[in-house]
C-alpha cells in the first residue's frame, strides 16, 4: 500500500517539527503571562479563559459562533429537503417499546436538574470554570433527556423547531449586538462598556455574563436543532411503514 511509507515519513516530519517547539513546560511567550497578571484587575473577572474568549478575543469568538450557526443551518437544510412526504399523524406515535420504566423515571427526574445546572454554568461564566459553550450543551442535554425517556412528543412540545430557530438566531444576533454596543458606547468594537462590579460577584466583569448568556442560548438551540433533525428522519421513516 502506498500510504504506509508516506505515513511514516509524515510521522517523522511531525515529530521532528514539534520537537523544536519550546520544551514542554517552559512557556516562553509574554502574552499569556501578561494576561494572567492584568486580567483580574482590568476586567474584574476571575475566570480568565472566559475573559479571553468573551472580551479580549471576542472577535475570534464571533467568527467561531458563526461557524456554528452556518453548520447548523447546513445540517437543517440537508436533512429537511429529504422530507418530501407529509408528516405522519402524531396520534400514531406510541411510547418507545425499548425504554424501561426505570430509565424513563430516571431521565424525567433529571430534566429539571440539567436545565438548572446548565443555567448555573452559563451565568457563572465569568467567575468559575464554565461559560456559554459548556452551559449551552448542558442545557441542550436537559431537553434531549426527554427523547431518551421515550417522550419524543413532549420534547417537540418543549422545544418546537420554530422556537429553536428563533433562539438560535437571537443568540447569534445578541452577541453581535453586544459588540456593536461596545462600538456605540465606548468607541471600540467589543469594548467592555458595562459597569465592572466586584470580582467574584455575579454581576461583575461588565458584559461578559451577557455575552455568556447569549452564546449559551445559541449553542443550546443549535444542538437541539441538529438532534431534532436527525430524530425527525428516524421517526418519519418509522411512521411510514
Amino acid at each position, binding site marked *: 500500500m502506498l*500510504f504506509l511509507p508516506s*505515513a511514516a515519513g*509524515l*510521522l517523522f516530519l*511531525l*515529530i521532528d517539527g*514539534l*520537537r523544536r*517547539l*519550546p*520544551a*514542554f*513546560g*517552559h*512557556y516562553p*511567550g509574554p*502574552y*499569556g503571562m501578561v*494576561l*494572567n*497578571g492584568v*486580567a*483580574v*484587575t482590568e476586567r474584574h473577572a*476571575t*475566570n*480568565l*479563559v*472566559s*475573559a*479571553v*474568549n468573551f472580551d479580549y*478575543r471576542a472577535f*475570534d*469568538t464571533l467568527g*467561531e459562533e458563526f*461557524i*456554528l450557526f452556518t*453548520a*447548523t443551518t*447546513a*445540517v437543517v437544510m*440537508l*436533512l429537511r429537503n*429529504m422530507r418530501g412526504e407529509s408528516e405522519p399523524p402524531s396520534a400514531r406515535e406510541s411510547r418507545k417499546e425499548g425504554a424501561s420504566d426505570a430509565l424513563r423515571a430516571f431521565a424525567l427526574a433529571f430534566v429539571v436538574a440539567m436545565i438548572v445546572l446548565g443555567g448555573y454554568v452559563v451565568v457563572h461564566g465569568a*467567575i*468559575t*470554570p464554565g*461559560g456559554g*459553550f*459548556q452551559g*449551552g450543551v448542558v442545557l441542550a442535554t436537559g431537553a434531549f433527556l426527554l427523547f431518551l425517556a421515550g417522550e419524543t412528543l413532549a420534547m417537540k412540545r418543549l422545544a418546537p423547531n420554530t422556537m429553536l430557530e428563533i433562539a438560535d438566531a437571537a443568540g447569534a444576533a445578541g452577541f453581535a449586538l453586544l459588540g456593536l454596543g461596545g462600538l456605540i458606547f465606548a468607541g471600540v468594537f467589543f469594548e467592555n462598556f458595562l459597569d465592572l462590579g466586584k*470580582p*467574584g460577584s455575579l454581576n461583575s466583569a461588565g458584559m461578559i455574563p451577557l455575552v455568556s448568556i447569549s452564546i449559551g442560548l445559541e*449553542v443550546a438551540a*443549535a*444542538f437541539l436543532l*441538529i438532534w431534532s*433533525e*436527525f430524530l425527525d428522519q428516524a421517526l418519519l421513516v418509522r411512521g411510514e411503514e
Partner: protein
Amino acid sequence: MSVLPYVVAAWLFVIGLYGIVTSRHLVHLAVCLTVVQSSTYLVLLSSGYVRHGSAPIYADIPPVTTAVDPVVQALTLTDIVVESTITALVLALAVQAMKRFGSVDPNFLRQLRG
C-alpha cells in the same frame, strides 16, 4: 518526558489519517476525523503549559500565582464545540449519500459519476 505530548499528538494525527484513507464506511470516516482534530487540541494545550502552574481561574487563589496560558485554552474550548457541529454536518452528508446511492462505502461512491 518533555517531548511525549508532541509524540502522542503526531501519532494520533497519523493514525487518524490512516483511518480516513482506509475507511470503508462514511460514519467510520467521520469519527476518524474527530481523532485527527483532537490531536491538534493536545498540541495547543501542551504548548501553553507552564511547569508547576495552576489553572487560570483566580476565584480562590491570590492573583499573583503562576498559571498556565489562558489564550490557548480559550481557542481549544471553542474549537471542541465547533468540531462536533462539523461532525454533525459530515454525518448529515453521509445520511444523504445513503439515501441517494444506497451505499456508504467511499470506494463505491467514488466510482459514481453525475
